[in-house]
């Protein structure tokens, strides 16, 4: 469970987050949606303690985060761009993480490790891996310690369709185990089958946080992309990002 109260963060002139309030419960898959630079990654990094908020509070599993790093034991994080020490081999990376997290061997979740066949590249140094393979390593690491909260920043970007499908299946499985999963993505069709809640951010402000059922009911649209677009049309005039996306898709299709 994550509770966010009045969270604000400013980078010099840019207001990255402005007065965010939210509650994410176990068993939910929350999609963070918004245009580039809307504060999605900043929000995620604030939860992880990598960005220090100017004001406001974040509670993870009921405990306020304030310097004690132990709450991160229950979080698996898959970054947008996984960057790892160049000289480290894949196997060493996993061994090091095991060393740090001290999770007993039988509790480890090696599902993705097997499905992505990462064992075959265990001896390769991280620097020789392609972007997609690195994403697979990031994903496998995030799920490895069987955490109660999963934070996935653009998980399917850069993955081939097969791997992307494997990852989505894995997310579905974890959802059934009553875990809290936060996902950011620009590929709304990927989120369609997974998500239970949608949080829409724009210019650091939270425009809405709704469950998918009421979103569909309110808009009468079944697809997530269209549902959000219709909310945007009915609501704020200045928020036109989603229309642009849909327009672009339409032109691509007619071509």
């Amino acid at each position, binding site marked *: 469970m994550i509770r966010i109260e009045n969270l604000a963060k400013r980078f010099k002139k840019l207001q990255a987050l402005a007065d965010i309030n939210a509650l994410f419960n176990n068993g939910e898959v929350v999609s963070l949606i918004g245009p580039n630079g809307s504060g999605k990654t900043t929000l995620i990094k604030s939860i992880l303690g*990598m960005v220090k908020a100017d004001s406001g509070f974040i509670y993870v599993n009921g405990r306020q985060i304030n310097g004690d790093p132990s709450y991160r034991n229950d979080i698996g994080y898959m970054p947008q761009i996984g*960057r790892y020490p160049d000289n480290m081999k894949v196997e060493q990376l996993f061994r090091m993480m095991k060393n*740090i*997290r001290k999770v007993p061997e039988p509790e480890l979740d090696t599902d993705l490790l097997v499905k992505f066949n990462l064992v075959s590249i265990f001896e390769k140094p991280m620097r020789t891996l392609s972007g997609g393979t690195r994403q697979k390593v990031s994903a496998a690491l995030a799920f490895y310690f069987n955490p109660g909260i999963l934070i996935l920043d653009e998980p399917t970007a850069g993955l081939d369709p097969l791997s992307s499908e494997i990852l989505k299946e894995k997310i579905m499985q974890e959802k059934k185990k009553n875990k809290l999963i936060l996902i950011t993505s620009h590929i709304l069709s990927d989120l369609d089958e997974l998500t239970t809640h949608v949080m829409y951010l724009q210019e650091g402000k939270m425009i809405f946080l709704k469950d998918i059922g009421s979103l569909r009911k309110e808009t009468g649209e079944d697809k997530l992309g269209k549902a959000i677009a219709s909310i945007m049309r009915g609501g704020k005039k200045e928020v036109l990002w989603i229309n642009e996306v849909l327009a672009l898709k339409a032109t691509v299709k007619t071509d």
Partner: protein
Amino acid sequence: MLKLSRYVLYDILRSKVVLAYTLFLFVVSFSLFQLEENDSKAILSLLTIVLIVVPLISMIFTTIHYYNSYEFIELMLSQPLSRTRILMSEYAGVALSLLSAFFIGVGIPVLLFAFDETGMALLFTGGSLTLVFTSIAFLASVKARDKARGIGAALLLWFYFALIYDGLVLLVLFSFSEYPMEKFTLLLSALNPIDLGRIFIMLKMDVSALMGYTGALYKDFFGSGTGVLFTAGIMILWIIIPLWLAIRSFKRKDM
């Protein structure tokens, strides 16, 4: 903490820069002892190396290492580890490798050829300077926004401590040559670890006889037990304060 330092050490050893540094120090020290008839003359030449090269290499190596391990640090930040522990592990890894390079490269030849008070003073000064400048370089790299600025700041600081500071001291001494300055110069020497190290070693040598009245005063002070304690105390302050400032600023940093 040592668990993390192990990976830092492993990464450093893989890059082989420290190995080259060790070899360089060893070859220079060894050939100096071979070339000079008089061992104390060799120590004098070695003193220049210790006072100029050791701080320079310590600073540049630390700064480059810090920026190269940015990915590692980022990865560690999303794990249940405190920021203090992450930075201290980095410091321990870098300091340990530079210190061993110095003690193997310079220590072994000194123990073989000049195992006396002067030799020990040289090793003490070199070891302290390694730790001091590693600590200062950490402060510079944490504060600087990017690699270029970080290395620039490290170089400037080195210029200041190794060259500019002496010029400033001379300027002050000339302008106030009418006044008794002995106590004041003692204070000035404490404000620069390189100067302090130089005075500490010089007074153990015969050349200190040439330094006149001030030299006599210095010899009186640094030759005594208080002098040794004073030097060690100031050096420890020079190690702890920059490192403490670096940790303080690292804790507030957005990654």
